[in-house]
């Protein structure tokens, strides 16, 4: 099974602008594809278009080789889990799960087997005859999942299914979902605005912003090779430090001259054509080196220290007030108000075109 989106666009009735445009995407068999993006970027619209709940204004949607633009949702062999769960309040848990099979006029025995199978998998057997209003949020979430899996569809669509759960349960369900995905061996398309969910669960992340795809790839590519400044800033916590500057004599020099770094050999190659042009340097908080005996360094004052246990996040300021976020192991001694020098791990520098924001190296 493959889901292919070709140049898909969506314009809502009564809107001037296209909400989405020019979306090209290929989701392969057994992919756990996470569509990630800030709110209002059109990710839910995209999911609803794959589900058939929203019409497709332009472009083509293929399931395998079949164009399904006009196929109604029920004939697409999909199942969807909603953010609000959308359980039918007047039916028992059992009926909720059996509903889709009942609508397909399967025989009773078959339905019972499937429902029991799903209930066992999701540990719902004790609540099968309760109403949704009588069970807890986590259980409702599992019923919503159960309703999706009883039919064994080819494609699972999930619209921020974990956002209504508390932090502990969410962590637990993340693992459950991945396990479920592996057991079922189908395609999962998962919409979220939470980068942790995306990084931990996905085999493929699609990062969207402003109705366009910013980058498609594996989670580690997102972290280590962000395609542009937006991606670099969106992924990773704390946010990546971005320093604006330009290239001079093969060295990166920030606008205020405080930061200057000599890039590594490989980076130098790709930066050659940028000599004298505007370039942004990105560096992750944990890729600063403390000690200051390796290459270029800079000095900064520690403003705030956030103690997270295994690491400390230092919010520091350069002489001119520019803020840099630096993370160091938790047992290192750093205090607010102190001045320290830090170096750079030059193999982990990200260079972006100063005008377009695209990645250079």
């Amino acid at each position, binding site marked *: 099974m493959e889901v292919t989106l070709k140049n898909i666009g969506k314009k809502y009735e009564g809107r001037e602008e296209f909400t989405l445009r020019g979306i090209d995407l290929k989701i392969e068999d057994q992919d756990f594809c996470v569509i990630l993006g800030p709110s209002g970027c059109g990710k839910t619209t995209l999911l609803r278009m794959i589900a058939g709940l929203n019409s497709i204004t332009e472009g083509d949607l293929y399931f395998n080789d079949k164009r399904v633009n006009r196929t109604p949702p*029920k004939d697409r062999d999909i199942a969807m889990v*909603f*953010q*609000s769960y*959308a*359980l039918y309040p*007047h039916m028992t848990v059992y009926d909720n799960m059996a509903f889709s099979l009942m609508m397909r006029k399967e025989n009773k025995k078959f339905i019972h087997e499937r429902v029991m199978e799903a209930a066992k998998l999701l540990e719902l057997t004790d609540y099968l005859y309760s109403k949704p209003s009588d069970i807890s949020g986590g259980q409702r*979430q599992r019923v919503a999942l159960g309703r999706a899996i009883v039919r064994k569809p080819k494609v699972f669509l999930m619209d921020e299914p974990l956002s209504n759960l508390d932090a502990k349960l969410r962590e637990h369900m993340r693992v459950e979902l991945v396990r479920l995905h592996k057991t079922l061996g189908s395609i999962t398309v998962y919409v979220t605005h939470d980068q942790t969910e995306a990084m931990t669960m996905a085999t493929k992340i699609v990062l969207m912003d402003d109705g366009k795809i910013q980058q498609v790839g594996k989670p580690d590519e997102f972290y280590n090779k962000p395609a542009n400044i937006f991606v670099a800033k969106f992924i990773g916590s704390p946010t990546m430090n971005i320093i604006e500057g330009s290239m001079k004599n093969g060295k990166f020099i920030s606008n205020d001259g405080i930061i200057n770094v000599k890039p590594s050999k490989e980076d130098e190659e790709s930066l050659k054509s940028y000599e004298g042009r505007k370039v942004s340097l990105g560096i992750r908080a944990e890729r600063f080196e403390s000690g200051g005996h390796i290459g270029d360094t800079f000095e900064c004052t520690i403003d705030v220290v956030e103690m997270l246990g295994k690491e400390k996040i230092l919010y520091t300021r350069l002489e001119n007030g520019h803020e840099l976020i630096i993370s160091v192991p938790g047992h290192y001694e750093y205090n607010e108000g102190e001045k320290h020098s830090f170096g750079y791990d030059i193999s982990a520098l990200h260079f972006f075109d100063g005008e377009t924001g695209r990645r250079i190296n």
Partner: protein
Amino acid sequence: MKLFRKKDDLYLSDKQPLSISGKILLIITYIILISWAVAIIWPLFQMVLSAFNGKQEQYLMLNDQFVFSLKHFEYLFNKTLFLKWAKNTILIALATAILTLIIVSFTGYAYSRYRFKGKKASLMAMMLIQAIPTFAGITAYFTMYSVISSINPAFTRQLMLVLIYAGGGIANNTFILKGYIDSISTELDDAAKIDGCSNLQVYRLIIMPIAKPMLALIALWSFIGPFMDYLLPKVLLTSPESYTLAAGLFTLINDVRTLNQPAFAAGGLLTAIPIVILFIVLQKQLVSGLSQGSVKG
């Protein structure tokens, strides 16, 4: 003993204790409410009393004499067309309730879930037209009736009445049902569509069961309407055979030939029975709010 005292003295209400003026106001409020209640209950009580009072003759007399008897009921059943009127009314009321439910189901659902041209304008128009009393259209009803009945003689005046009642209720009830369905998450519709429902099935299997309390209320209101209305049946229905209860019973107090006021009281009492039964049957539906727990936790 002292301990108990203390317990009694504890002020447990969440509201601030009343000041003297507050207490006076409270007493006045109670006096108003009680006198209001008496004003409503006393005539009802008199009606019940007269209905069972054997001493009452053709005219109602408010005196102390009371002998229990069912003779007014006997009169009602044997000498008047009461049973026929009751049957007419119940049939008309049932037909009205069912017709209203069917029409309003469609309109309420459509107005709540679909976007179409003129949605707002038509809703406003319906609301405005509703402001004109139904009775103002009586000449039009007559013309419509004569046109339809000349084509199809089976179309009785009672059917016309059903149409008027059901049609008259559409606007208000559509508003009410639309509001209720608006409060049901559209994600339920989406889920049902993915589960394999057509639009009608979404309404029948998902929305309708959830909107049951509101539908029960609408059914009840449309059912009660024909019991209460006097004017339209009086004007539209011509023979006593086809009268509804309100129109029929009225002949017992305004026509000298058939005058029997205690029987009117007895009839009024009996009229209340089907409505009370309906209230009891639908009580559970009217009170419950089923849609809790459908979404979120």
